[in-house]
């Protein structure tokens, strides 16, 4: 494994395991054409996000230009190049949720978390994003924290919802 990640620049001891896993993923997909996106998905799962060093590692292993890897990553909003929080909050701002007060949820959450859309809290607990319709229009206004959908969210209940994630 260590020779696989020998090319990795700026690797710390702590990262080595993660880079090893990414190297295994790359080995699995390397010979299949058009598998870059798949590799990036899995790499993000392993590493949490895709910083420049991980991008270099992937580009170098696949022998493709770094600018191509970064081009794909910056094209799709699913990929992140900055560290993400432990949990991701996505407030739906599709039309139905918007009309039913989605924007108020956004404003309140910004207050509670002290961050803007797209940012991560200082304690790395939450990343705050908006979503364009999550297909739960009947439950508007809706939001998701990780894979859990919260329906008909009351602005005043946001604080208690958030605090639950600090308890566990």
């Amino acid at each position, binding site marked *: 494994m260590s020779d696989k990640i020998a090319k990795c620049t700026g690797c710390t001891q702590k990262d080595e395991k993660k880079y090893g896993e990414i190297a295994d993923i790359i080995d699995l997909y390397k010979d299949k054409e058009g598998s870059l996106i798949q590799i990036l998905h899995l790499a993000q799962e392993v590493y949490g996000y895709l910083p*420049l060093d991980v991008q*270099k590692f992937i580009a*170098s292993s696949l022998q493709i230009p770094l600018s*191509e*890897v970064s081009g794909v990553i*910056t094209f799709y909003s699913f990929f992140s190049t900055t560290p993400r929080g432990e949990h991701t909050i996505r407030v739906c701002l599709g039309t139905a949720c*918007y009309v039913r007060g989605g924007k108020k949820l956004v404003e309140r959450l910004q207050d509670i978390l002290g961050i803007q*859309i797209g940012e991560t809290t200082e304690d790395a607990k939450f990343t705050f994003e908006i979503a364009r319709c999550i297909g739960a229009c009947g439950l508007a206004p809706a939001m998701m924290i990780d894979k859990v959908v919260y329906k008909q969210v009351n602005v005043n209940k946001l604080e208690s919802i958030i605090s639950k994630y600090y308890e566990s």
Partner: protein
Amino acid sequence: MINLVINGKPISVAEGTTIMNAAKAHNISIPNLCYLEGIHKIGSCRICVVEVKGAKTLQASCMTMAAEGMEVNTNSDKARKARKVLYELLLSDHSKDCLSCKRNQTCELQELGKTLGIEETRFEGAHSDHVIDTSVSITRDMSKCILCRRCVTVCNQVQGAGILNAQNRGFSTVIGPAMDLPLGTVNCVFCGQCTVVCPVGALKETDSIQSVWAALNDKNKRVVVQVAPAIRVALGDEFGFEPGTQVTGKLAAALRALGFNDVFDTNFAADLTIMEEGTELLGRIKSALTGEPAVLPMITSCSPGWIKHIEHTYPEHLDNLSSCKSPHTMLGALVKSYYAEKIGAKPQDLFVVSVMPCTAKKTEIARNEMKNDGVPNVDAVLTTRELASMIKEGGIDFKGLPDEEFDSPLGMSTGAADIFGMTGGVMEAALRTVYEIITGRELPFDGLHVTPIEGFDQVKEATVKLENVVDEYKFLEGVEVKVAVTSGVRGANILMDQIAKGESPYHFIEVMGCPGGCIMGGGQPRSSDPDVRTKRLKGILAEDEGKALRKSHTNPYVTEMYEQFLEHPNSHKSHDLLHTHYVKRGEFNELTDEEFVVDTLRSSKKLRVPIGSIPDYCPSGQSSNRKMHEDLESVKILALEAENTRVKKELDDALETVDLLKKVIVNNKKPK
């Protein structure tokens, strides 16, 4: 053959012909922008749309193939209107400071506007705030980019370098290196091919004109100029001459008229290179044959783009490179030693300007290795395009100039030096000399031209058998010298991969960084002539054949240089002045701290450089590095800010939609 009707005119064309080419063959020109014959055909700009009977939408004629029975109208009202709208949309996010743009009157976008009859721009809106990234060689002003992606194709498909690609999405799309990294920090080799194909002012060489004017105006400086071989068959393009026209005499006259004190020829140093490189090659082959350690194949080192490429991509194989500096830095070193001594000047008081077909040479002269006693060998590099623009600015009537000669002694050269400008030329020049030195006979090829290595194939090879050698070189009797020639980064990779695997069969390899060699360099005039390459090649060959002396070792001034100053090829003095070493850089620059960044700023914060305060290029060492990190930080912050703005805008958009929907609801309620 396929029969179709274009604009009511029945025509027949070969199968596989695009509508655009079918029309062109019958004197109908369809306006186009992103299309580049034989290179770039992705239909991204849609300007070339035409109406095809039965098709639902307008078709991009650069991509749509002519088909049997097709009825095409290239000039319908619908097609013309569509082109105008598309054009105006392109302008809506283009910084329209045309009058102060370097591409003013050579801009393809500007030209297209005239062709399309544009008289208004109806769409005004947000402008993307892109970076203006100045490296020592190339400046990227992304506020002028129209996303045609020609540069992406040239960088990825033609050169195989993969530095430029589309980053981000939608309105934020920008063509550039990964993660907004400045060009001077990545493994770009600065070949400049992107600057040749850019239709607008988004990609261009970093300006050296101002520093050259400043030197010419400085009474304490003696300004020495030299020109590369490829300039003399390309500069004419800029003044209305047929591509490939030899303008050597006018070139020398123009330089003198601009006020340069000494007008020398890089060709002299090209002859010298052959002596140095040839001797080095013989030395290596001798060592290999006598069982001493020797690194073969030896590879030429004239092309700084190629050098930077091998330093990034094959840092373990730098020993394969010849230790010779490139010819213009050799000449610079001699001007500031031999010539300075001769005229009794201090090296610091001489300012050497090289006119090169090359953008990479701008970075080359900034390298630490290209200095002797702390004085740079060359002080400024002008591209062919930049020289043309100086001649125009200087009010010189180029066409009306008489033919003049280069100055002595560093202006005299043989035909072997001229062919340095084309792919295969350095190899041919070397063979002419080496073969004759070893065998005492002339190289046995037709008119001295080694045909297997001329032309534009990706990798060419030849074998030269050495028989009946002179006594001094008895160890070479019967040896078959295998040589290979390539141009362009992609071809170089093929030969380097062989070397990396230990399977290279060659003794000597010539690599030039640009496809076709220096005649097609990144600093050469942009030409719309599809045969420009062949025409420039012919010009170079004619220049060679027109010379009385055609072998480097017969240059009397080179002989004199050795007698009076350098002693003999590869002497101690030669090594000091004319040879160099290389830097391991690595794919991501991980092996060095050296970077080639001048400046990065956002287009919205564009500042004009005040006249007289020429940016002090500091490509190497600490200060640029620190500045680099500060810049990177600010780029990161700006990127975050931009993301924030984008998301806020999305929110506003949603808000607007809601307002609209509310209005619709209100309107629908009214009848009740």
